[in-house]
């Protein structure tokens, strides 16, 4: 059984203008119906396999993106959807924008576009799904889960 049969999404809007968000949601509607591939929009990092981030990362959302990523169980894949998520896009030069999502967490798939089209996004998801299987294989071979008890103090998280 391959993991690729059931990729569950978590969608996070880091600082998007909402253009890409609408397209992400559009792909879950009956018209595009990504559930054909078993994709479910979970809204919960702890159940998700694929993190779809739209918009570039700014100072305020940096911590959130990191936290959501840390709460996803392995294996997991990150998709940067839209040009802003890929490298900052037209907001790149803004005083508060860090740049693309990859400035904060490792990104696996880049799906450019302004806004990203559902077809492109679905294509990205299909690629991500293959990657999930590969990561699962890798996980089996190096069966080492990080064991870490207790929580981080508030101050460190804020950094």
């Amino acid at each position, binding site marked *: 059984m391959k993991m690729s049969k059931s990729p569950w999404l978590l969608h*996070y809007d880091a600082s998007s203008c909402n253009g890409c968000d609408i397209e992400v949601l559009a792909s879950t509607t009956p018209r595009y119906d990504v559930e054909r591939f078993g994709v479910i929009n979970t809204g*919960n*990092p*702890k159940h998700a396999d694929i993190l779809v981030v739209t918009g570039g990362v700014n100072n*305020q959302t940096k*911590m*959130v*993106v990191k*936290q*959501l990523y*840390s*709460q996803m*169980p392995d294996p997991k894949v990150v998709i940067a959807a839209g040009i802003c998520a890929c490298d900052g896009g037209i907001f790149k030069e803004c005083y508060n924008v860090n740049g693309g999502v990859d400035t904060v967490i490792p990104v696996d798939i880049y799906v450019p576009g302004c806004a990203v089209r559902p077809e492109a996004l679905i294509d990205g998801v299909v690629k991500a799904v293959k990657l999930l299987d590969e990561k699962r294989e890798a996980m089996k071979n190096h*069966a080492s*889960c*990080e*064991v*870490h*008890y*207790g*929580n*981080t*103090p*508030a*101050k*460190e*998280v*804020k950094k």
Partner: protein
Amino acid sequence: MILLFLFFFTLGMSVLTALLRDEKIRGGVVIVGSIIMMVLDVLFCVWAYLNGVGDNKVLTFLPESGLTEKCTYVFMAGELFLFSLITVLSVKHGKYHCILLSAIGTIPVLWLDITHKAVENLPMLKVDDLTILMFMVVGIVGGLISIYAVGYLHDYHIHHKDVENRSQYFQALLFLFLTAMYGLITSDALSWMFFFWEITSTVSFLLIGYTKKSEAVTNSFRALWMNLLGGCGFMVAILYCALVMHIGSLTELVEAGPRKAGIVIPVVFLSLAAITKSAQMPFSRWLLGAMVAPTPSSALLHSATMVKAGVYLLIRISPLFAGNLGGIMITTIGGFTFFAASLLAISQSDGKKVLAYSTISNLGLITACAGVGQPAATWAAIMLLLFHAVSKSLMFLAVGAVENATGSRDVEDMHGMVVKFPKMAYVMTVGICGMFLAPFGMLVAKWAALKAYIDSNNVMLVMFLVFGSATTMFYWGKWLGKLYAVLHQSERHRDVVHKSEWQVMYCLTALIVSLCALFPMIGTVFVQPVLSQSFGQTVGTIISDNDIRVMLMMLIMIGLMPVLAAFLIRNRKEKMTMAYMAGVNAGDDRHFIDSLGGIRPSYLSNWYMEEWFGEKRILNPSLYLSATAVTVMMIVAVGGAL
């Protein structure tokens, strides 16, 4: 005579504690005395059992008439003393209605005794299986609570500097109460029972007013007048029995049978007395007010024993409820109280208030069971009484200990107890589960009650029960949940609970678990004979052996759960993360980062559904409704009989 010795020993303890000023010596005396009392109690039960009580025999005591007469004079003096005590205190606080009620209750009974109109030459005391069961409850729970009270009061007065330290008075009252309770459950003569009945009312009044704060005084007088009103009902029943029917004892009354003309009048008035004492609606408010008293008295009087006196009386006369208006009145009030009080409990966050409403609610269920007037229902009533006494007193003691240790008895403040105060969390878990969860006691008894209701074709009661048990689950469940929130990096509470208090709580916990395992035996050995005596017929199997076996399996599984879980998760590789808080968890699961980057605390409250089940919305309508029901049914019943 072990009985008399037990009786006078407890009374003597009361006097002794009242005299001992030094706290340490008194504490020691109370502990030793309570242990002796419990031993005597058990000895008495064994003795009674050996003398044939177990084999459907009843031990009656007919003291030579000289002694009876002397006792009667002592009791008359006692009643006069109670009356004058109430008068003095009522005048002092300007509550004159209590004097009137007390006078109405006392004077006719005195008159009856003085003019020798009372029925004489009766067996005044009687011991049967129900008495033994009650002895077990009163003696063991009462003794344990007295021991607990020693440590508790010590801490109580450290935390409440504004309250005058009258702990010797408190402990003396506890023992006085236990004496009265022993008297109440052994008396068969109505007039004797009435005397002890009035003592318990008065002691409860005095204990509620212990702190002398204005709220406590108000509440104590509310408790007093309601209980005195019940006493008046008792008085009417005695008068009617003596003057019209020439009956002077409970046994005779029950033997007269439900078909006898006019019997409905004493039955209805005795029921009135019972529902006031057991705080059924519309008289439920006194029990809530009683929660201002220090916890040991709440545990002993207002949950485990005194309020049980009401339902005890109902169980005694339950054969008389079959197919008459008295029965309908009692089942309606009981069923309604069970449901309404459990709704009200949902909206409470004060631990003791939840317990109070839950007590009212469960007493309602027992009342309803007794009112059905069928052996199977009475079986359930006795079981409920037993399980409730043990579980509820444990819960009260635990809440009291938590209050002394943490300074709050609010359920909200018990958040994360499993980490902060693990021992207490486990004790409370057993107490709470004992109240409503599957293999534990109360649920078994509820189950039996449900079957009995169905078999007696009482649709209304079944509906009350199914809805009431759903709401019961809600308020207990969310309390249980509160205890189990795991808070990382939290400090443990300092365990300031006295060793003696812990031992008492462990004893009760062990008692709950063993009762669950032993209940089939208790059913056949103790409860069955009671029923065959009072109903003259045996009950079939209430809960089949198969079900009992399954439930024992569940009990064992729950017992093994922690071990099994520890074994299964021993080698698991798990990654620990923070709880999900929409990505803005500040790292400790208790704070989040707001939109300006500041750290704010998050607070997880339970649901209280105020706008659905709040006191404001439900309390008054249900009081009016039940008051109307009681009044109408009493008028109809009495009018019909006359």
